[in-house]
């Protein structure tokens, strides 16, 4: 891909990232349910089978535990597998392998067995697919030492995160929000290094810091625009990496604005929003002019009905209201 900016969808960006990786390194292969002939449940891998063949674009049976574990074994033996899990809810069928092997083998073997594996999966709500296809469980995975958790929220991140993830000697999970696949952006593949350890400031601002990730970034940016029209200059930080969290960027932002609102599509209790809030309290308590606010998904299995699903998700209105609450405090 040229260094000139190119217009891409988020879906195209993930596909081009995989295509680059497959071309650059014989050890890389993709496996998962319907990644080949079907072209991927979300058409992310469409066309890759034709270019790379069935050995490297492997359709698997519906056996999440077996094919995720097979990715672990293949990684131990020198391959660089990309394993696609259709949705985050299905990843629970492979949780044993992710937690008990991928995240654990290195430590348990005293440093012998690192697992250079990338697992990609779809996450998030907004498509009326109800309570077994809509959740945001990336925060659960971010609880586990030994994993790196990446959440591309922009087309550029979708295009550029995979290569460094594949270079990581340890397991990396990439969560792709289903609601982002059709978003578009202009991406240049410059030769500048791409840092997967840092959060990104998506919008500068001075009055309050909005911290979010993944599918909530567009909602948060929209809220920031509305707030700007109302006279509040909000900074937006995209966490991008949920494990390890980039404390420096998070705390630095809060020290500048003295107010923070965390926006998280996942359930509030025990969430990434809770973790971010706790870290701000631990590291920047005396910089705060108001308590940290959280805007999270309602604590309910995701309902099918459109109006109920919308009510369960953080909205622009809810973000604006939370910001106004922190602004009202002196």
């Amino acid at each position, binding site marked *: 891909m040229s260094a000139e900016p190119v217009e891409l969808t988020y879906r195209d960006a993930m596909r081009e990232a995989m295509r680059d990786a497959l071309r650059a390194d014989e050890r890389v292969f993709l496996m998962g349910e319907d990644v080949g002939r079907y072209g991927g449940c979300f058409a992310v891998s469409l066309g890759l089978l034709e270019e790379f063949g069935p050995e490297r674009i492997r359709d698997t049976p519906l056996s999440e*535990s077996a094919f995720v574990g097979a990715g672990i074994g293949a990684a131990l033996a020198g391959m660089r597998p990309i394993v696609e899990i259709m949705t985050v809810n299905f990843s629970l069928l492979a949780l044993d392998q992710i937690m008990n092997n991928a995240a654990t083998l290195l430590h348990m073997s005293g440093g012998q067995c690192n697992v250079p594996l990338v697992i990609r999966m779809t996450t998030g709500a907004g498509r009326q697919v109800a309570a077994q296809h809509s959740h945001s469980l990336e925060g659960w995975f971010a609880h586990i030492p030994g994993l790196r958790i990446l959440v591309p929220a922009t087309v550029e991140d979708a295009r550029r995160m995979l290569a460094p993830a594949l270079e990581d000697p340890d397991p990396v999970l990439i969560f792709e929000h289903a609601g982002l696949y059709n978003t578009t952006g202009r991406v240049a593949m410059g030769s500048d290094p791409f840092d997967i350890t840092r959060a990104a400031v998506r919008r500068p601002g001075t009055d309050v810091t909005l911290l979010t990730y993944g599918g909530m970034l567009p909602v948060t940016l929209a809220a920031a625009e509305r707030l700007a029209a109302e006279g509040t200059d909000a900074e937006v930080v995209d966490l991008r990496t949920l494990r390890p969290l980039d404390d420096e960027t998070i705390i630095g932002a809060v020290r500048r604005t003295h107010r923070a609102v965390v926006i998280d599509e996942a359930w509030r209790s025990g969430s990434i929003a809770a973790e971010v809030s706790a870290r701000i309290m631990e590291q920047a308590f005396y910089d705060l002019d108001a308590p940290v606010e959280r805007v999270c998904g309602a604590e309910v299995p995701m309902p099918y009905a459109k109006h109920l699903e919308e009510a369960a998700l953080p909205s622009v209105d809810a973000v604006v209201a939370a910001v106004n609450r922190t602004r009202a405090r002196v």
Partner: protein
Amino acid sequence: MSDVANREDALALLREMVRVRRFEERCVELYSAARIRGFVHLYIGEEAVAVGVLAALTDDDDVVATYRDHGHALVRGVPATAIMAEMYGVQEGCSRGRGGSMHLFDVGHRFYGGNAIVAGGLPVAVGLALARKMQGRGGVVACFFGEGAMAEGEFHECMNLAALWSLPVLFCCENNLYAMGTALARSESETDLVLKATSYEMPAWPVDGMDVVTVRDATRRAVESIRAGGGPHFLELRTFRFRAHSMYDPERYRERAEVEEWKLRDPIATFVERFAFTADDLEELERTVADEVDAAVAFAEAGTPEPVEDLTRFVTSELGRT
């Protein structure tokens, strides 16, 4: 092929079984003396399985074991010193004291661990085999598990995937009749384990797991077929655990008489009887094994605990470090 090649061959097989037996007997003493803690699962009674199977592999093949893994590690060539040090939880252990009895690792010997999640090692074995196939490396991945694992979903997923992709996996089911305390007939609707395997279009056969020569022969046959491109094979190795499941297990689930009956088929005693080794042979063998175990204990006793400052090492890889 149905017997030992010569006296040296027979002695070598016996030596491996005795190494495992004496090592574990010492582990029991050390556990009672509180030198070893945690869970310790003894292989006593099942030695012919690991010795027979591993004798049919080469150094280039891979091994994945379970939490009952001392025997497999020892026979595979992981030094007794490093295994005992691991049980002591010192950094000279084969997993630097991070794994303990259930998680012996030695990548240099292609020993990919003691896995303590029942059936959790099978997907990893399938992946090791997938890499071998994709890399055109040949070789076999021997994956051990108990019959209890056959009730797990991961077992069935892995049998299907390995057969579907014709991967070089040797599935070694150590059927000791009890999944911890649950008898086979109380955990399986179909107790013919070979039938389960063949339903995945996989060659499978039962093996007398109390006879080391029979085990080695069966494994040679399976491995030869796998190396020739025959895809995965399944062996049901019929054996019995003489001791408790773990160190303190009141064994309420089985009759004393059943244990005694199986002990008549002790793989070591029956082998000694069959090959009429000389008293000198046996004495020499026992003496060298005792020396090895003594040396392992001395090594572990002299081991050094890893500094607490290193607690969080090996959570992620240390680039640039070895």
